[in-house]
């Protein structure tokens, strides 16, 4: 039985909506929180999937953007709840607890940093690109650990979730709604972008840079723009993740997190629209179910990942639809 990818995608999205609604009826608020976590991780991975799946940029440092988004939220909310202003010498900025404002700040910050990291990193390729992005991740990680003003390695606690006009974000299903809508928007963007001239050119640049140059396009520019868009979406996910936990810490910058984002995509299917979503759901479910069975659940996670690489190229989607994913 080979499924058509469109049906599979629709089923996954519906499932993602149905589970929390069912949990709402049966009064299982934690299940909603769990699904929200999967949705946010999926959003981060959708971002990475633009760079990695379409553009072939194996960024081992996407935690930079996840963490930046998180810290943008943490710092703004911290100043808002302590009624202090951020002092930049010549001027100062008040904090805020309004989510959309925080998102705009997070997204802008991530765009700037992605532009800078992209400009420097895209001079390299292959393994060197993997490693230079890792290096940037480590720089941010160590910086965050020693940044005592914002908690250093202890991180920053935000005692109540930030506000969204018209909603009560502390109610799990409402916060889930916000995250789900943003994920849906990101998926729409991914889908349009992948099929638009930009995506087509970027996808070709992953496969053959020489061809793209020969038709008069510059692969480096395509990849840089992809990297920035990618970083922005992952950054937005970081801000949501921080709000889900009401907490930010340097672990959001860790290389393990960068690795996990890659893992999510591979589990689902590289370059596939719903790959990150399926990957995130599978990952969170495994973490939850296996983690409940044994403290040695990492062994089983390892075995599952290994089997995916060895026997299921193309991830879950590849397995179900019988089509391999993008080669990176």
């Amino acid at each position, binding site marked *: 039985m080979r499924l058509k990818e469109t049906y599979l995608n629709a089923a996954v999205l519906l499932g993602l909506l149905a589970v929390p609604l069912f949990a709402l009826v049966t009064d299982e608020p934690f299940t909603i929180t769990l699904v929200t976590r999967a949705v946010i991780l999926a959003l981060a991975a959708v971002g990475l999937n633009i760079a990695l799946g379409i553009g072939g940029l194996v960024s081992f440092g996407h935690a930079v953007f996840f963490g930046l988004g998180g810290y943008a939220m943490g710092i703004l909310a911290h100043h808002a709840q302590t009624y202090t202003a951020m002092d930049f010498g010549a001027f100062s900025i008040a904090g805020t607890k309004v989510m959309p404002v925080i998102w705009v700040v997070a997204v802008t910050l991530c765009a700037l940093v992605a532009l800078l990291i992209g400009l420097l990193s895209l001079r390299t390729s292959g393994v060197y690109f993997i490693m230079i992005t890792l290096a940037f991740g480590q720089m941010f990680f160590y910086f965050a650990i020693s940044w005592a003003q914002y*908690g250093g*390695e*202890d991180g920053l606690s935000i005692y109540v979730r930030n506000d969204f006009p018209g909603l009560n974000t502390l109610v799990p299903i409402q916060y889930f709604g916000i995250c789900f809508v943003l994920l849906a928007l990101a998926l729409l963007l991914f889908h349009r972008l992948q099929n638009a001239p930009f995506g087509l050119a970027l996808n070709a640049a992953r496969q053959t840079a020489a061809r793209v140059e020969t038709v008069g396009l510059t692969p480096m520019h395509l990849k840089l723009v992809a990297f920035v868009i990618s970083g922005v979406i992952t950054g937005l996910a970081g801000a949501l993740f921080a709000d889900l936990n009401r907490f930010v810490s340097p672990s959001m910058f860790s290389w393990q997190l960068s690795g996990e984002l890659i893992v999510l995509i591979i589990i689902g299917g590289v370059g596939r629209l719903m790959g990150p979503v399926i990957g995130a759901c599978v990952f969170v479910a495994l973490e939850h179910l296996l983690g409940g069975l044994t403290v040695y659940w990492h062994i089983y996670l390892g075995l599952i990942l290994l089997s995916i690489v060895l026997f299921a190229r193309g991830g879950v989607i590849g397995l179900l639809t019988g089509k391999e994913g993008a080669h990176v």
Partner: protein
Amino acid sequence: MKHLLLATAAAVFCAGSALADTKIGMITTLSGGGAGLGIDVRDGFMLAIAQSGRNDVEVVIEDDQRKPDIAVQLADRMIQSERVDIMTGIIWSNLAMAVIPSAVNQNVFYLSPNAGPSQLAGPGCHQNYFNVAWQNDNLHEAAGSYANSADYTNSFILAPNYPAGQDALTGYKRMYEGALAGEVFTQLGQTDYAAEIAQIRASGADSVFFFLPGGMGISFLKQYADSGVDLPVVGPAFSFDQGILQAVGDAALGVVNTSQWNKDIDNPTNAAFVESFSAEYGRLPSLYASQGFDTANLILSALDKASPSDADAFREALRAADFDSTRGDFAFDTNQHPIQDIYAREVIQEGDVFTNKIIGVALEDHSNVYADQCKM
């Protein structure tokens, strides 16, 4: 074998029947780096629950993998789905800061068996938050006090560059009256201390104070012992607990460290605890195990007087601290952190086993400097 079975019971562990009246959620570190501490706390805690023979207390145990976001997620689950009354178990300050403020605001009681960050002792204190171990500064303050009594006048001090490390040096300096030969922040997770040891050698110090928890301490002590620098070393108990000492070996012999507990504290509760813990798990208890054990007994003592559903009465019962602590005298200060003796211990060898022996009291009936800042 029994402890292996316990170890796999990460999901739900029922001490009694399904009739449980009180649900306790324990989030602690059982896998990955630093799992030894969480395992000790859990084993000490469960020992006390088992010894109480009560069948109306259910303990839900979860592994946080030492990741703050996982801990937060587990806390959400315990509060939202399991609807626990009391939470405990967190080992690390950063995880504590992630979980505790929001948990106690959701009307859950939290009793810390290990971490005691200063924010939660001072302005961030809360009527539902109790610390049964120590405020983070305590053992470092005791080390500073011990340094005075040992007539050290020129200490070289070092700790990793993160909040707990910075607090450690502040705590030591708060009590220590001598001069500083040097003050160094190492990298978190650093494994090689040759550079720092060379600085110590060149500094002209007469003593060394260090706070390097976990594997960092093992590395430091082994390298220090091999360096030929033979200045006396003091530190908090974290690098000298029962789990770590065996990995350090000879290198730790004779080192003085400060702790609120040791297995030779002379009281019947402690003697019984050490004996029953060793019998149950086949290893000597560590201070973490004693903290877990005390936390459980404090909860049990309060449950005898009131139910957590009557929050005010239960809180009063906890405040009274009317239980037999393995540490002897134990009381809560106004910010619900312990007032207790802190001892200086020396590392000795008993047969094949490295362990600690009390050599004196470093600070008597010691509380913490943050109590004044706490307004409840």
